[in-house]
C-alpha cells in the first residue's frame, strides 16, 4: 500500500519537477525582462524628463498653446505628460516581452487579439476622453454661472453636471468596447435622476428670491433693500 503511495508521490514530484524545470528558464527570462523593463522605464522616464526640460519643451508648448489645451484636460505639465507617455510605452513593451518569454503562442494570440481589439478600444477611449473634456467644460461653466448668481450650492451643481456627463460618456465608451452592455440603460437612468435633481436644485435655488418676494408680498412684509444704484459701465 505504502509502496504504491510512494510511487504516486514520486511520479507526481517527477512530473512537477520536470515541467517546472522546463518552464523555469521561461519564467526566469520573463522575470529578467520584467526587472530590466522596470529599470528601463524608470531610466527612460528620467532621461526623457531631463531632455525635455533641457529643450524647454514647457515653454515651447506654452507658446503654441499646447499647455493651455492640456490644462483644460487636467494635465498641468506638458513635460510630465510626455514622460508618462514614454513610460507607458516602456511598460507595454515590457509586458509583451514578459508574455512572450512565458509562452510565445499565448503571447502571439494575445497580441493578435489586442491589435484586433485596438480600433474599438481607440474609439472607446476617444469617447471617454471627449466625455471627460465636455464634463470639465460644462462643470466649469455651471460652477461660474452658479457662483456669479450667488447660488449656495454652486459646487454641488457643478459636480452633478460633471458627474452626469462622465457617467454617460463612460457608459457609451464601455458599450462600444463591448464591456457591460447592460450598463448603458442603468447609466442613463442614473443620469436622468441626476439631471432631475440638478434641475430641481437649480430651479429651487434660482427662484428662491422670487418666491420669497412673492410670499413677502402676500404677507404684507416690507420689501427687501433696494438694489444697487451703481452704474458699472
Amino acid at each position, binding site marked *: 500500500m505504502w509502496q504504491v503511495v510512494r510511487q504516486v508521490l514520486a511520479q507526481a514530484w517527477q512530473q512537477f519537477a520536470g515541467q517546472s524545470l522546463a518552464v523555469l528558464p521561461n519564467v526566469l527570462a520573463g522575470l529578467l525582462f520584467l526587472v530590466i523593463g522596470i529599470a528601463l522605464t524608470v531610466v527612460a522616464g528620467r532621461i526623457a524628463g531631463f531632455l525635455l526640460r533641457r529643450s524647454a519643451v514647457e515653454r515651447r508648448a506654452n507658446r503654441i498653446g499646447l499647455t493651455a489645451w492640456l490644462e*483644460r484636460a487636467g494635465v498641468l505639465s506638458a513635460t510630465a505628460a510626455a514622460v508618462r507617455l514614454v513610460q507607458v510605452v516602456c511598460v507595454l513593451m515590457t509586458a509583451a516581452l514578459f508574455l512572450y518569454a512565458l509562452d510565445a503562442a499565448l503571447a502571439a494570440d494575445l497580441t493578435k487579439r489586442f491589435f484586433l481589439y485596438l480600433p474599438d478600444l481607440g474609439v472607446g477611449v476617444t469617447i471617454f476622453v471627449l466625455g471627460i473634456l465636455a464634463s470639465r*467644460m460644462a462643470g466649469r461653466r455651471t460652477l461660474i454661472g452658479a*457662483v456669479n448668481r450667488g447660488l449656495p450650492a454652486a459646487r454641488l451643481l457643478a459636480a452633478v453636471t460633471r458627474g452626469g456627463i462622465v457617467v454617460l460618456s463612460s457608459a457609451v465608451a464601455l458599450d462600444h468596447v463591448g464591456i457591460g452592455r447592460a450598463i448603458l440603460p442603468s447609466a442613463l437612468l442614473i443620469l436622468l435622476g441626476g439631471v432631475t435633481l440638478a434641475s430641481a436644485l437649480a430651479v429651487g435655488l434660482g427662484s428662491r428670491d422670487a418666491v420669497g418676494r412673492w410670499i413677502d408680498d402676500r404677507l404684507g412684509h416690507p420689501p427687501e*433693500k433696494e438694489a444697487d444704484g451703481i452704474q458699472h459701465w
Partner: protein
Amino acid sequence: MMAAPEILAPAVRERLAEIGKADLVVGIPSYQNARTIGHVVHAAQAGLAKYFPDAHGVILNSDGGSTDDTAAVVASSGGFDAAVVLVSNPVRPVHRFTVPYHGVPGKGSAFRTVFRAAEFLGAQACAVVDADLRSITPEWIHLLLAPVLEQGIDFVAPYYHRHKFDGTITNSVVYPLTRALYGKRVRQPIGGEFGVSRALLGHYLRQPVWETDVARFGIDIWMTTTAICGGFRVCQAFLGAKLHDPKDPGADLAGMLVQVLGTVFRLMETHEDTWQRVKGSEPVPVVGFQYGVGLDPVRVDTGRMMDLFRRGVRDLEPVWRTVFDRDTMARLRDLASRAGRDFDIDDRLWAGVIYDLAVAHHRRVSERADLVRAALPLYLGRVASFVTELAEADGEAVEQRVEDLCLAFEALKEGLRRDWADGRR
C-alpha cells in the same frame, strides 16, 4: 485692407440719394428707446441748427428692430423752438429718418450703418450719440463735431462728470488698461458718444471686423483703440454730466464684463505690436469749458459684493488657479477673511490680476468667455474695496485714486510684456 461691401438696403440708398450730399451726420443707434429718443433727436437737431447753420445736416436713427414707438417718435420729433436756441437765421432744413440696420444684431452694426450712410453722403464729420441720454444738450453736437471740422481732429471721445462710483468698469479696468497699453489718457474710452472724421470713418468701414463680435458689442472700445493705434488725431470733448435712462437692473453684469473686457483682451492681440512698444502715457487734449455738476447720490451695497467675492474665492479656485500664481491666490484667500476697511484689494494686486487675466485669455487656458465670467467676483471685490475706501471722499479724491491705479498699471506693464511673450502665468 478690404473694400467695404455695400450694407445699405436699396430703399435706404434711394433715400440718401434723394438727400444728395450732407456735410454733417448725427447717428443715433437705438433699440426700444421710445421714452428718450425724442429728446435726443431734438437736441441733435437744435445743435446742428444752432452751431452749424450753414452746413447740411442729417440725423440718422439706426434702429435694431424696436417694437415700441422708437421710429414713430423719431419721425414726429420735427419741430423745436428755434427762438430758444438760435441766434442766426436762416437755418437749413435738417433731414432725419430711421434706418433699420442689417447684419449681425448689435450696436456695432448700427454704427456701421451710420458710418456707411455718412460716407455715402460725403459727410465731413459724423457724431454718434446714445438714444437713452437724458442730459444731452445741443452743445454736445457742437463739441463732438467742431474739433473735427475746425481742428482737424479725427476722433473726439467724450469726457463726462459722473458720480464718483459710477462707471466702475471704466474706472477700474478699461481706462487704466487702455491708457497703460496704448499710452493715451482717454478718460472715457467706452463712453458711447463720439465725433469721427471722414478719413477715420473710411478706415473703420474697411476693417474686417463687422461680422465679428465687434458688430454685436465692444464697438466703443474698438473705435477708441482703432483710432489710437491707427495714428489718428484724438481729443476729448467735455460734455458735462452724463445722465441716461436707468439701465435694466436685471442686466447681466457678467455678460457685460465679457463684452467689454473680452473685447479689450482681443484688441491686445490685434494691436500687440503697438502696445508692446508704448511706455508710459500722455494726456489727450480736452475741448469745451469744464464746469462742476451736481450728481444724484448713488446707493452701493458693498456687503453683497464682498459676499460674492468670498464665494468666488471659496468655489472658483480651480478656475482661478489656472490664471493666477500661488502668491496672488494666497492674497485673494487672505482678503476673503477680511471685512470692512481691512478688505483692501490694492492697486498693484488689482493691476496684476487684470494683467494675469489678459495673459490667460491670450493663452486660452480656458474658454475665453468663461475666464472673463469667472472674474466677476474679483471685479465686485475690487469695486467693494474701492467704495469702502472712498466712501467719504469727494470726486477729486476719487479721481486721484483712479490716477494712482493707472500709474500702478503702467508700472507693472513690463511684467505683462514678459509674461505675454513667455506665455507664462
